[in-house]
Structure formats: structure tokens, C-alpha cells
């Protein structure tokens, strides 16, 4: 039984070392929706001249500067379940309101928090055609929303 006691002690030390958690700050979640523009006529990728894109209620901060864009990244509000974006483009003024669920998670002391945006939907829009192609936002995604002009 003396041997067993020695083994128990050794195994305890091994066990304690396995309790040390390895931090991993590479989160997969994202809080930006990637929007790509398409031509309504033939469905092909399009570049449009954007004057400004702003988040409703935060008009001082422009999300996209005046330029030609084939895609833009829209920052989703994490403190509420909807975000509205105001577009001024070559096709005129328009807006999109997204609704979604936000889950907040504390990752670790080193990595802080992350948000997971799920069930992304279009609540209302003045644009002709907008489609959500990816309703859970992630880092690996290359396209979340399609806008046809």
C-alpha cells in the first residue's frame, strides 16, 4: 500500500498541472456584417458609389467614406437587438434595419468578452432587394448580406 500512496502523490501533481487552463483568445465570432453589392438586372457583383453610410442615432461617425465600394462592413450594435443603417449612394437615400439576438460571453481574464450575433434578419428596408445569406456572424464569413441595386 506504501507504493500506492507514492503513486497517488505523483498522480496528484500531474492532475494539478492539468488544471492549468491554456488561454485561447482566437474567437470565431464577429460583430460586423459583411455586405456585398450586386446588380439587380443580372445578379452579378457590382461596385457602387457611396456618399456615406451611417448608423442611425450615431450620424457623427461615418462607417464608409465617399468612394466606390463592392462591399462594406456594417458594425452591429451589441447593446440592443436591432441596428439601422442609413445609406446615401448613387441610387439615392435608403436604409436597412436588422434584428438579431446577441449573446455575450466572458471568455477569460486574458481575453475579456465576446459577442455572438445570431438569427440576423432584415426587419425593414427601403431598398429593392436585400437578402441575408449568413444569419450567424463569424470571423470566417466572407459575405453575410446581399444588396441588389
Amino acid at each position, binding site marked *: *500500500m506504501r*507504493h*500506492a*500512496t507514492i*503513486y*497517488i502523490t*505523483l*498522480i*496528484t501533481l*500531474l*492532475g*494539478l*498541472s*492539468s*488544471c492549468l*487552463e491554456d488561454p485561447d483568445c482566437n474567437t470565431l465570432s464577429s460583430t460586423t456584417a459583411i455586405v456585398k453589392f450586386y446588380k439587380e438586372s443580372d445578379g452579378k457583383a457590382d461596385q457602387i458609389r457611396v456618399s456615406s453610410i451611417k*448608423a442611425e442615432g*450615431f450620424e457623427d*461617425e461615418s*462607417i464608409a467614406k465617399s468612394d466606390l465600394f463592392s462591399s462594406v462592413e456594417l*458594425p452591429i*450594435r*451589441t*447593446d440592443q437587438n436591432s441596428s439601422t443603417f442609413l445609406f446615401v449612394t448613387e441610387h439615392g437615400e435608403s436604409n436597412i434595419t436588422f434584428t438579431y*439576438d*446577441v*449573446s*455575450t*460571453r*466572458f*471568455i*477569460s*481574464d*486574458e*481575453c*475579456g*468578452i465576446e459577442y*455572438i450575433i*445570431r438569427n440576423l434578419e432584415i426587419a425593414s428596408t427601403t431598398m429593392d432587394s436585400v437578402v441575408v445569406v449568413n444569419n450567424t456572424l463569424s470571423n470566417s464569413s466572407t459575405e453575410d448580406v446581399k444588396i441588389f441595386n
Partner: protein
Amino acid sequence: MLKYLISASLLLACLISSAQDQKKEENNKQAGKQKTVKAKTDSVINELDSSTMYIPTGVRIGTDVISIIKTFSKDDYKQFNITADIDFHKYLFNIELGHLEQSIDSYNDSASYEVKGSYLKIGPDINFLVKDPDRSALFVGLRYALSSFSDNLSFIDKSPTYGVITDKLENNNLTAHWIELTTGLKVQIAKPLWMGYTARFKVRMSNFEEEELMPNTIPGYGLAEDKVTWGFNYWIMFRIPLRKAPVPNYLKK
């Protein structure tokens, strides 16, 4: 990788320690002329044993030393574990109770997470050292575990578009379920004093991905994001004998 090494060495150590015991018993081997007498005594005792062997011989009650050490050495960490097992021949029935209170702050002080909850684990072990005269246990087993807990998260976050966001989210009385595979050893150190360990492989059944606040820690389970986790307990236990059972001095041939 480290985790696999550890589990492999755990297994190895279990095998080695049981092999050592067998060797010891072999060394005690008596002369061949006593064999027939022993065999007769054994058969009588075995007969006695079979009628009473499922009546428990004792209860072991213990506490986990690792959680006590962590309580004293870590800031904002309180954990307490108690265990009890009762024997039914080669089966041990276990009840474990625990409580965890923990708070974690992010290094940049932008987020603070608190969790508080209790857990219960019940299930059987199979003891492979049932014939050991010291009543040691080398076991594998299964646990059903559930935890009832509450947690909250306060944080400040800066967004280039939306400015500073301050929020506090909380969950009240969430319940988590999981299954554990266990293995370990329990040995007698002094007359009533026992020591032992339990290594656990835990598989989560509950899912909290739909919650507004996704829990970081499930008391008794570990990190909530992991579908499987590992656990380890080092027990100090006392055994309360319930009856005197005949323990034959089994000899190896």
C-alpha cells in the same frame, strides 16, 4: 497533448500499483502443504460471503483537498467538495456534493464575471480490488451530475461607431446536466483515515448558446464552452464500518 499524456500515465500508474500488490501477496505465499486446509477454509468463507456480500460493510466520507488548496491560494475562489460512498460487494455507490463561488476580472478591468452554484453527482463505481483485505478500491464508474447556478457579467466596451457601452447581464438559477466517466483509487492510510483520487472525463448535455449571457463556468463541470472537460479530485476520507465482514486471506496459486 498534455491531457492525453496525463490520462495515459494515470492508467499506467493504476496498473503498476495493482501489479505491486499482487507481487506482495505472492511473496507471502505459504508452503504447499497448507494449501488444502486453506482451500477448505476459503470455500466455507466464500459460502458465508455469498449470502451476505451485498450487505454494505462501511461508509467512506471525505473531502477534496485540491478544492480546499485552491480556495486558500486563489483570490476570489471558493470551492468545497464532499463525497460519500457505500459498498455493495464490488459496487460502490457514490454521492458527491459541491459548491463553487468564483469571480474573474479581465486583466484590463473592462469585464467582471461572477458565478455561484452548487452541484450534485451520483453514480456507481465498480471496484476491481474487491478481495483486498484492506478494502482498497481501484475503480471505474459513471456519474450523473447536475448543477444549479447563477452568474453575472458587468462590462464596459468601446465601439468605434457606438461609443462606450456599459452593461450588466445575469442568469438566475440555470441548471446544467452532464455525465462523467470516473476512475481512481482509494487506499487506507491509518485505521480510519483513507486517501484517494478520482479522475473524471465529463461530457456536457446542457447547452447555453441561446442565453443572452452565455455562462463561462459551470460549477462542478468547468468551462461551459467546452463540450468535454477533465476533472481531478484528491480525497481525504474516513471510513465508518457498518459490519464486520469475513475477509479471507486469498492466496495466489
